[in-house]
Each structure stands twice: as structure tokens, then as C-alpha cells.
């Protein structure tokens, strides 16, 4: 991968030296910070950089393409359901499909993924049934745990709070000598959280098999990245912590797939963490509770419409001869159908069990909690709930 760790040559392992500040450390020659590579394989017109074009099979490419279409179809259906009052507040991922799906394409089942709240596409690809995600966003407790055989963290609601546990999982893999890795994503806004910076440091210090995907989508609710930080190249955060860091066009699915592939390969090979800044754009609302017209203007959105990750991938696949107008339509139709089916399943799922709030707090059930549950059951009976 074209990226580099400027401090590589300065960092020494604990065996080699006793102290960091041996004579050479107060070397007075200026320190060259090197550079950050920027990766784009497919430009916004769908033109491919032949020198960088990866050799994924056509099946694989179509599989990823369908995942992107499905993510968008799911997003749209969720929006409709939300407007109908049948879905809670949620965060659409429209426009970020390449970034979100590309980041999990090189994960294996026994690897882990630590999603944010804007990662539907990736979660579906990781094996979350769509009706399960609907349960989640509709406020059911049973929607939160990842399904069986899916080694994901639950999605993170408190911004940045999942990044440290993700690093812990990576350290756990090293501890247990597993050949696995973790992908964790977070946004430009989250990059300001101190806990995230601690996570980068821990991952780098312990050389944990973690891939950080910093989704720089231009906005954190109403805050543009240039007000979030005085250095909009968020890949610099990886550099500061001595990590291999790269900036990727997050609307280019090929670049995302390649960058994560290389990063996960490195992680598995014991070469430590990688920092990937994925530059993308939040095309839609922050969440369904948000009104972006208050704080951003249409022109910016238009600029990014032209960079649509879906369109450019379609162009590429068409040029490659693996997709045509018909199969595009078919894919869309079959995805929409799948989403509708999930919705129907979701609608038929049982109502919430109000007693579930007392479950799963401890391994055993403390007396005081039993007492409180009894009090609560009494309350439910009085209300005639659950009978």
C-alpha cells in the first residue's frame, strides 16, 4: 500500500535500547515527517487507474455491488418507515456505501467489526438480518446483540466509545495468538474525542491487529470538518501515533477494498494497526431528527452528488462488461424485494416483553433487583400489561 510511517526509522523496539533519549534521540537534524499517500483507483467518472486496478473476480465485484444497492434500498425503506411513524430515529448511510461496505470486504467470519450507527450496509454484509437491524432501530432490546456467528460489537451510540473496546479485542487476538483482526470505524466528529486518540495510541503501542477507518464525511451533525479541527487531513492522527496511515477516496469502492485488504493482511501478519482516512460525504440528513437545510447549502451537496460511489462503480462494471442496464434494474428490484420481505418479517415479530428490562444485568439475580422486579410486575399487572 502506498502510505508511510514517517517515524518508522526512529522507533526502536524495547530490546534495542534502554531509553528513548539515548544520544541519538536529541539528534538536532530536522525531522522529516514524510508524506501521506492518497489512494483513488476509480475516479468520479468511473475511470479506472489501470496501474492500480485490483484483480477481484467478477462474482466478487457483483456481490459487493449488490451489497451497495441493498444498503441504499434498505436506507430508503427505513426512511419511509420512519416517516410513517413505524421506525425510530436512525442515521441514513446514503452516499457512503462504498466507504461503509468496502471496509468489511476483507474480513472473515472470525474477525471482528466494530460499527458506528451509520454502518447498515456493512452490518448486513457481516450477516445481520435486515429485520434484526429494524428491531434495533425500532427500540427493541433484542435488536442490539449481534446475531449468532456475527462477531461484531453492538453499534456505538456514544460517539467514539467503541474504539477502545475494539482495540481491546485486537489485543485479545494477539493474546490468544489468533490470526485475526478488527475493523473499527468512526467519524470526523468522533476524531475529536480524547478516548479515540487513546485508542490509537494503545493500538500502536501494542501493535494490535486493528484497522481504523476514519470516515471523514464532511460533517458531524452541523459541524463541518474544518471547524472540527485545524488539520483536516485526519490521517495525520494515525501518523502522530506512529501508525501506517493513508487517505483513501471513500467513494471509490475499489480503493476502499484494496486499502482494507492490505491493512487486514498487515494486521494478520503481525505488522500492527493501520489508519485509513476515508474521504466521503454525508449526502442525507444526519439522522431523521435532523434538518441539514438549516446549516448547509445545496451546492455542496450537488458537488458530491457528482461523486456518487454507486454511479461510478456502475460505470466501471459496465465498461468491464459485467453489468448492463438490465442487470442494474434487476439488482435493484431484487434488493427492494428483499428489503420488503425483511420489513414484513419485522412487522410480524412479537411486541417487546416489558419484563426484559430486568434481564441480563448480572450473571445471577441480586435480591434487591428481584424485589424491584416484583414491584414492576405488580405495576404491569395493575396496568393490565402483558396479560
Amino acid at each position: 500500500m502506498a502510505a508511510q510511517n514517517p517515524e518508522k526509522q526512529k522507533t526502536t523496539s524495547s530490546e534495542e535500547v534502554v531509553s528513548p533519549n539515548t544520544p541519538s534521540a536529541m539528534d538536532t537534524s530536522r525531522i522529516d515527517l514524510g508524506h501521506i499517500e492518497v489512494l483513488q483507483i476509480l475516479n468520479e467518472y468511473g475511470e479506472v487507474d489501470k496501474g492500480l486496478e485490483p484483480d477481484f473476480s467478477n462474482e466478487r465485484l457483483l456481490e459487493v455491488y449488490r451489497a451497495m444497492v441493498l444498503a441504499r434500498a434498505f436506507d430508503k425503506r427505513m426512511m419511509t418507515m420512519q416517516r410513517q411513524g413505524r421506525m425510530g430515529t436512525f442515521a441514513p448511510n446514503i452516499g457512503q456505501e462504498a466507504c461503509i461496505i468496502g471496509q468489511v470486504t476483507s474480513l472473515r467470519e472470525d474477525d471482528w467489526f466494530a460499527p458506528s450507527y451509520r454502518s447498515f450496509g456493512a452490518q448486513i454484509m457481516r450477516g445481520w438480518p435486515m429485520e434484526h437491524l429494524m428491531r434495533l432501530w425500532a427500540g427493541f432490546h433484542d435488536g442490539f446483540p449481534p446475531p449468532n456467528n456475527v462477531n461484531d460489537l453492538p453499534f456505538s451510540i456514544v460517539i467514539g466509545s467503541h474504539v477502545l473496546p475494539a482495540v481491546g479485542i485486537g489485543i485479545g487476538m494477539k493474546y490468544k495468538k489468533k490470526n485475526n483482526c478488527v475493523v473499527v470505524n468512526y467519524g470526523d466528529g468522533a476524531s475529536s474525542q480524547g478516548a479515540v486518540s487513546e485508542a490509537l495510541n494503545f493500538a500502536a503501542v501494542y501493535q494490535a491487529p486493528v484497522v481504523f477507518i476514519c470516515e471523514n464525511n464532511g460533517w458531524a451533525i452541523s459541524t463541518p470538518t474544518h471547524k472540527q479541527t485545524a488539520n483536516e487531513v485526519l490521517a495525520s492522527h494515525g501518523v502522530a501515533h506512529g501508525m501506517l496511515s493513508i487517505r483513501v477516496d471513500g467513494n471509490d469502492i475499489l480503493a476502499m477494498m484494496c486499502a482494507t485488504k492490505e491493512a487486514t493482511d498487515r494486521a494478520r501478519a503481525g505488522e500492527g494497526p493501520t489508519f485509513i482516512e476515508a474521504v466521503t460525504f454525508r449526502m442525507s440528513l444526519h439522522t431523521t431528527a435532523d434538518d441539514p437545510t438549516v446549516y448547509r447549502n445545496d451546492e455542496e451537496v450537488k458537488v458530491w452528488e457528482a461523486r456518487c460511489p454507486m454511479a461510478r462503480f456502475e460505470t466501471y462494471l459496465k465498461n468491464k462488461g459485467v453489468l448492463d442496464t438490465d442487470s442494474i434494474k434487476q439488482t435493484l428490484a431484487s434488493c427492494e424485494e428483499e428489503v420488503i420481505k425483511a420489513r414484513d418479517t419485522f412487522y410480524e415479530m412479537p411486541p417487546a416483553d416489558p419484563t426484559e428490562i430486568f434481564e441480563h444485568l448480572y450473571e445471577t439475580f441480586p435480591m434487591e433487583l428481584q424485589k424491584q422486579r416484583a414491584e414492576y410486575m405488580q405495576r404491569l399487572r395493575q396496568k393490565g400489561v402483558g396479560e
Partner: protein
Amino acid sequence: MSKLTMVEAVNLALMQEMERDKNVCMLGEDIGVNGGVFRATKDLQKEHGEERVMDTPLAECGIVGTAVGMAVYGIRPVVEIQFSGFTMQAFDQIEQNMARIRNRTRGKYTVPMVLRTPYGGGIRAVEHHSESREAYWVHTPGLKVVIPSGPRNARALLAASIRDDDPIIFYEPKAVYRAFREEVPDEPEVMELGKAEIVHAGKDLTLISYGAMMRPCKEAVQDLAEDHNINVELIDLLTISPMDTETLCASVQKTGRCVIVHEGQRTCGIASEIIARLNEHAFEYLEAPVKRITGFDVPFPYFQVEEHFLPESEEIVLAVKETLAWE
């Protein structure tokens, strides 16, 4: 006089305090052009500029710690934390600096700042968006904790908090933000901090609550009067710390019975402290155990089941009747 919602009343207090004192400024996420996710800071930036209404990076510890420094320097920052659940991110700065700098510097520096944040359940939000953890702050020496229950007292208590020289945690019951309107005087109004209010005088039992739970309490008091001829004295704490122990104890000394209602978790919560103080000051007057109707000792539940978690007037009515029946 205009009829305002609580969120409008909060906005009014902020606007007027900024006009009154140019040292009053605001910090928070999305409080500028966006006017805050609940619109409590609407138009403040337009009116007073980006230097006084500062959109911040997404870092609650950063917001609070920065505001502490500004306060030490003589500014009067009003911080908005988007949801009270995210004050956990700033816990260290709150406990170690905001609450203690006056004490640490023997009064040389003060921290006249207000940390405003919406708290509580009832708006069908996701996890961490419905917390009522005021007990953390009440257990922390050096802080004051203020929780209004309606538009008018929200406005007057917020104005008082901004003018106060101590660091204040100001919890706004988000379920009340748009729940009803109330007459709020146009002219600035300020209410004294540290005083509980007897909202409804009564002789049979003392009912103590605050914040969003005042609504079901008021309903219960009315129901009890109308349907059962029970005369309850209802007290709105308003300032949770320092607590107006005198008013509470005087009432219970009169009524001999007491029920306490809050959303926050039970163990080591506000009701425990009130019971401990009644035990100290009104032991010989108590004719029945004091009853706690509170959030249970579990995380605030996801929204499909939250309605059952939050105390409602029926439970309160029942608890009052049970407490009256005790002998």
C-alpha cells in the same frame, strides 16, 4: 407575558442573560447555526456572534474543561451537553476542576459556569439518551444541581444559575421541553436557588419530586383530592443540591408520611438521601416508612418499553394510598 414551552423559555433566559452581561457566553456541539439539537440556543449565535456562541468540536471533556478555564478567567460560560448521558465523557473535568477549583484555590478563583443538559426519558430515544444521573452530581461536593419542572421556573432558575458564582449542573427535563406552554413574563425573572417550592399545600402526606416527574405527581395529587379526598402536600425540589432540607422536614413533621418520586436509579439516588435526612430530622414524626417510586436499578430501557419504566400517576396514587394505610 407570552405562553412559552420550556425550550422557548430556556432560549429566552439565555438570550436575556447574554444581553444583560457580555461576559456570558455559550459553548456546545451544534449550538450555533443549528441552534442546538433541541433548538434551545436558537438565534443566539445570529444575535451575538461566533465568539460568544461557540460551536465546539465533538468532545465533552474538552467543552467542560475549556469552559472551566474561561470561567476562571472571568467569563461566565454556559455549556450545553447535547444529552446528559454524555456528561460521563466530562466526568473528570467536572469532578476534578469544575467542582473543586474554588476550594483548591481557597476562593482565589471561582468557576461561575452552568452546564445545561437535557435529561430523562420519555422521548423514544436510543440508549444513553434518557439518563437521569443527577445523584452523581449531588454526591459531588462543590456543585449545585438545579432541575426545573416547567417553562416559567426553567427560565427563572436558569437566569439565577447564570448569575450565580458557583458551578451549576442544570438538568432540563427533555420530556417537558415541548409538553405544554405556560405564561412567562417578558421581563427577566430570577428565582432564588436552594429553595424547594410547596406546589400544593396539604396535610395528609408529603409528596416530594422534581423535574419531569412533577407532572405525574400533580396529576396524582389532583386525583387523590378529587377521587379519594386525600390532601397531599406536593413539594418541587427545584434545587437538588444543596437541598432544602428544612422545607422537606417541616412538611413531613406536619404530615408524618412521605412518598418520593424520581426517574433516576434508586440505589444511592436522591430519594435515599431524603430518607436519610428525614430519619435525622423527622424520625419521631414518621408514621409509616417513606416510599420510593424511582427508576429501577437497571440501565434506562430501550424505547419500546420505556413507558413502563417511568413512574406514572397511577403508581403514585397507589403508593400514597399504601403509605396512608400503613400502621
